[in-house]
């Protein structure tokens, strides 16, 4: 008696269903009307008027992701611009901005709405940028507005400060800082671009340290830390130029992979100071972007009549060149940068002052003592050690890898990444050691390698030992080893040999105790003209019936095949 009564849930559901149906009806009829109005014939009839604005606003209000309708609105607004008085236009624009705002409240992630807002503001004579900055926080839109309004980077930096203060797990804020800081502190032209002056760098490092000491499991801070300590891409350079008289071949390696077309606009070869048109190809024959490119030389440019031939390769885009001289009577010549560690492998982490790195290393070690299993901390320690001195810290680095692998924090999905990273660092160290020893023999046996990299650095290596690792393949990049004569790869898990192809000097290949499945995988070896000894003992393919015959057929020139 006299009490409040509430509808039952069935009644509520029924009411909701009716409401939805009603809405759908309205939506569909409005859409149809709009499409009728904007059809090609109606356009001419001048149907694109304010009624279209009204209709589309009904639909967009419910579903702001209807891109076609935003286009209609733009067309109408453009038309009205020509027809209306400034006052009327101002009112129209105000209404449009208000409408956009309400749409954004419905769906703040609607691209169409943001795009329309950008478009509209771009057309205004005096847009109120300050209001836009205060009203919205959407990163892309903010960058647009900040650029349009020429907001000083210092103010934007202060904005990221305030966000980070509230909650430092903010990838976008850290990222925005990495864009703003180089703008605020431009380096002199000669210096490496994108780097920060030391005082700024130290302040940023302190900030980011605060973050990872507070919460070492938050990745955003570690990523920013990596950026702070990293540097811009290395300068484009030709690393090595090699000419072989026997193979009538010229090989070049570059600081980064590139694609060389058939025309001369990427690479220009000058032989004895006159340009020579050649066909460039990659060692593996795939002609995809590669560190190493080579070309055949015509007999004329190698003849022994002249006392010497000069070969110069100019990399037009990279603004770099290299030259070498083949003397009479010599089989080969080369010119290469002495591979100091600085140039080669410190790209990931490097700052001018190693004192900064040193102190970063110390605080990370301090943190590691508190958080012995934190993967980000361990990884950063490893990276810092490599940046400081890869050979000095080699043993310690390996121990940290051990800790990292053992720690519960690393999930199995990342285990392979760590193995590969470790392989990369070990390989780099071996290459450095070889460089210092000035030999062309590289021992990589018993290193637990899971992958090969930096093979483009090994153009001149004649003997390579990869035995007793965990390699699953000899990758295509191995084809860059143009001077390789002996390759030992026993006791791995190798299943494919794509990289053992077109190696002009390869004579002996040891592949005992691998996982080569059937003779077909040996196909690439057929392209190695000088291969005489092949040891396949302990591979599954040895079990196949008639293996000797198959191999003899596949590799007729290899005189000695052990199975």
């Amino acid at each position: 008696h006299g009490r409040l009564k509430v509808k039952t849930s069935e009644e509520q559901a029924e009411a909701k269903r009716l409401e939805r149906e009603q809405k759908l009806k309205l939506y569909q009829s409005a859409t149809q009307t709009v499409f009728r109005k904007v059809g090609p014939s109606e356009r001419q009839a001048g149907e694109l008027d304010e009624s279209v604005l009204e209709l589309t606003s009904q639909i967009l209000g419910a579903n702001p992701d209807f891109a076609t309708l935003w286009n209609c609105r733009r067309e109408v607004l453009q038309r009205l611009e020509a027809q209306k008085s400034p006052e009327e236009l101002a009112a129209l624009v105000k209404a449009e901005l208000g409408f956009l705002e309400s749409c954004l409240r419905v769906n703040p992630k609607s691209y169409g709405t943001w795009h329309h807002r950008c478009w509209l503001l771009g057309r205004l004579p005096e847009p109120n940028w300050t209001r836009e900055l205060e009203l919205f926080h959407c990163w892309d839109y903010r960058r647009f507005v900040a650029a349009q309004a020429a907001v000083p980077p210092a103010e934007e930096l202060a904005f990221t400060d305030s966000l980070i203060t509230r909650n430092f797990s903010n990838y976008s804020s850290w990222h925005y800082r990495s864009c703003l800081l180089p703008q605020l502190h431009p380096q002199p032209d000669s210096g490496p671009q994108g780097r920060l002056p030391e005082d700024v760098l130290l302040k940023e490092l302190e900030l980011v340290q605060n973050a990872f000491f507070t919460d070492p499991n938050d990745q955003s801070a570690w990523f920013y830390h990596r950026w702070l300590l990293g540097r811009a891409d290395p300068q484009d350079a030709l690393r090595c130029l090699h000419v072989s008289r026997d193979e009538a071949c010229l090989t070049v390696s570059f600081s980064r992979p590139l694609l060389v077309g058939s025309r001369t606009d990427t690479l220009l070869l000058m032989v004895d100071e006159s340009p020579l048109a050649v066909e460039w190809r990659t060692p593996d024959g795939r002609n995809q972007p590669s560190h190493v490119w080579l070309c055949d030389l015509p007999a004329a440019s190698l003849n022994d009549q002249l006392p010497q031939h000069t070969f110069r390769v100019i990399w037009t885009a990279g603004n770099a060149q290299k030259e070498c001289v083949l003397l009479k009577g010599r089989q080969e010549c080369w010119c290469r940068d002495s591979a100091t560690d600085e140039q080669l492998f410190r790209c990931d982490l490097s700052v001018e002052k190693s004192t900064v790195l040193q102190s970063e290393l110390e605080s990370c070690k301090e943190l590691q003592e508190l958080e012995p299993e934190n993967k980000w901390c361990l990884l950063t320690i490893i990276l810092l050690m490599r940046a400081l001195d890869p050979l000095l810290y080699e043993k310690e680095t390996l121990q940290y890898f051990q800790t990292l692998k053992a720690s519960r924090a690393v999930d199995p999905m990342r285990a392979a990444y760590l193995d590969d990273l470790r392989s990369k660092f070990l390989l780099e160290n071996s290459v450095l050691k070889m460089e210092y020893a000035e030999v062309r023999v590289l021992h990589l046996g018993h290193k637990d390698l899971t992958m090969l990299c930096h093979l483009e650095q090994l153009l001149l290596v004649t003997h390579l030992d990869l035995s007793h690792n965990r390699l699953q393949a000899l990758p295509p990049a191995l084809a860059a080893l143009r001077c390789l004569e002996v390759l030992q790869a026993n006791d791995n898990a190798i299943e494919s040999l794509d990289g053992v192809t077109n190696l002009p000097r390869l004579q002996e290949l040891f592949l005992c105790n691998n996982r080569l499945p059937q003779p077909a995988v040996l196909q690439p070896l057929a392209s190695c003209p000088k291969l005489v000894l092949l040891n396949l003992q302990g591979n599954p393919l040895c079990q196949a019936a008639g293996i000797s015959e198959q191999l003899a057929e596949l590799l007729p020139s290899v005189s000695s095949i052990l199975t």
Partner: protein
Amino acid sequence: MANSLPTEFDVVVIGTGLPESILAAACSRSGQRVLHLDSRSYYGGNWASFSFSGLLSWLKEYQQNSDIGEEGSTAWQDLIYETEEAITLCRKDETIQHTEVFCYASQDVNDNIEETDVLQKSPSWVASSTLIKPLDSACLSEETHPLYVSSYEMSAKDTTKNNGEVTDAAETLVKEYCRYKTYKHTVSDGAKDETKPILEDNSDPPKRNRITYSQIVKEGRKFNIDLVSKLLYSQGLLIDLLIKSNVSHYAEFKNVTRILAFREGKVEQVPCSRADIFNSKDLTMVEKRMLMKFLTFCLDYEQHPDEYQAFVQSSFSEYLKTKKLTPNLQHFVLHSIAMMSDSPCTTIDGLKATKNFLQCLGRFGNTPFLLPLYGQGEIPQCFCRMCAVFGGIYCLRHKVQCLVVDKESGRCKAIIDHFGRRISAKYFIVEDSYLSEETCLNVQYKQISRAVLITDQSVLKAESDQQISVLIVPPVEPGACAVRITELCSSTMTCMKDTYLVHLTCSSSKTAREDLESVVKKLFTPYAETEIDKEELKKPRLLWALYFNMRDSSGVSRSSYNGLPSNVYVCTGPDCGLGSEHAVKQAETLFREIFPSEEFCPPPPNPEDIFFDGDDKQPEPSGTSNIVMAKLESSEGSKNLESPGKHLQN
């Protein structure tokens, strides 16, 4: 109006404190006919908030120790039938004791005149004859009685006495105040000379704002001074109830902005959230890590028993020492985060308290606490409002003389009010302070020591002067009580611009002043002494101070009351704690006892799902719209503000 009050209800609630108000709302929400009475002229009982002049009037009431409304009431003895007996209720409120007031701000009468012109321009003062708070003007349905007879009413009365003349009113209040002073000296002979108010003040350092007593009086409506200083845990029973029942719509809240600690004679900010720790300039990197690590562990300490199992027998502070925390961090965790300064608390209790604190973080802001704007006194009123929306009837200044008990059944059947009118009901809910001495013969009460200060600066200056701070001052000697301080800035709508309202609370061992004065002296300096000491100059200055003891009936069990019928339920007054969990728990427990099958404060239905059943006396859609419209402003509302009690008295 008097005659229109029905004489039959389902539930009669006496007292408008928080637990009674929640219960009233819950009963009304579940369809019971509720009559909610309070003998006072304001809502909330000891949970109330007052304007400055309202507080002075409140003080006057207690200090004059007057028998409230003795004369007007009709004899009730004749109204009891033979088959009945009566349980008298208490006529005097004895829950407040040892009130002492100190004024340090200049009371120069000339100030009065000087400042008047300036102040009259202030719109809020001009509006003094109407009521300021938007909530007050809320218009409720016609059948239900108006709810917001605010605490301002008393001061409004004062004003009208003096024909609304602003200056007159202020002067009257100053005079009244002087009477309190005299009174105080007669009561507490231990009052020393240093505490005497200093009337002349010519030694103002120019830097600080000069705030005079008359300014405080004139801007008194901007104060909302709580009798109890409580906050809401962001994840607590009260906030859950407010949200669940939609009562939260009736109030606004602010997050406490910082947690402070008092260590080695200095006030410092406690980094308690992840953001605080990240931003702290005082902690070293390693301290940041250790604190974060410990706090993170506390969040799910139950999952890591090996981390604390060995320390179950030892105290929390001993346990903290083993956690590689530096002394400052130990202090922060023990006193400011776990807030376990008082008793030697066990490791488990400490971990539980820390976890509770941390779980509250981040829900509404970077500290675990919320504060209702316009003071904590808003909260009981919000529940009253909900009760009224669902048909509850309200009468303030309505005294109840006795409960009528049916001899045969032993159940209470009615009350007799001060008009001698009999109002019957099935259930009766009475707040402890209404019960007579006889009923409470065996009851042992605890006491709460309270101080309310008006100061001119914050205890810890920061970039923004609008800080809301919670500070725990640990006991100096073991066994004593920690003092909880909340400092409110003017944007909380509890004090005027350029002042701070400071609440001190601890459980009493002596009188409030004896318990709290030492802490006050450590943190503040009286307004006039500034000239003397440079060190003292840095402290905020006291403009005005009030000490009082409040009865804490929270621990009293039902069985200690004599001879109460089983259908009379007792609600207790405020406890000493920071949150209001006790009151909410009590209300819910009592509700479940009375109506075991009903849901406790369920969310109100959507307005479109509501219709009224039959009876055309019931409120029309305007009534239902109140459910969703939190703040319905209407010019009629202020007319309605005449209290029902007034009508009934006429």
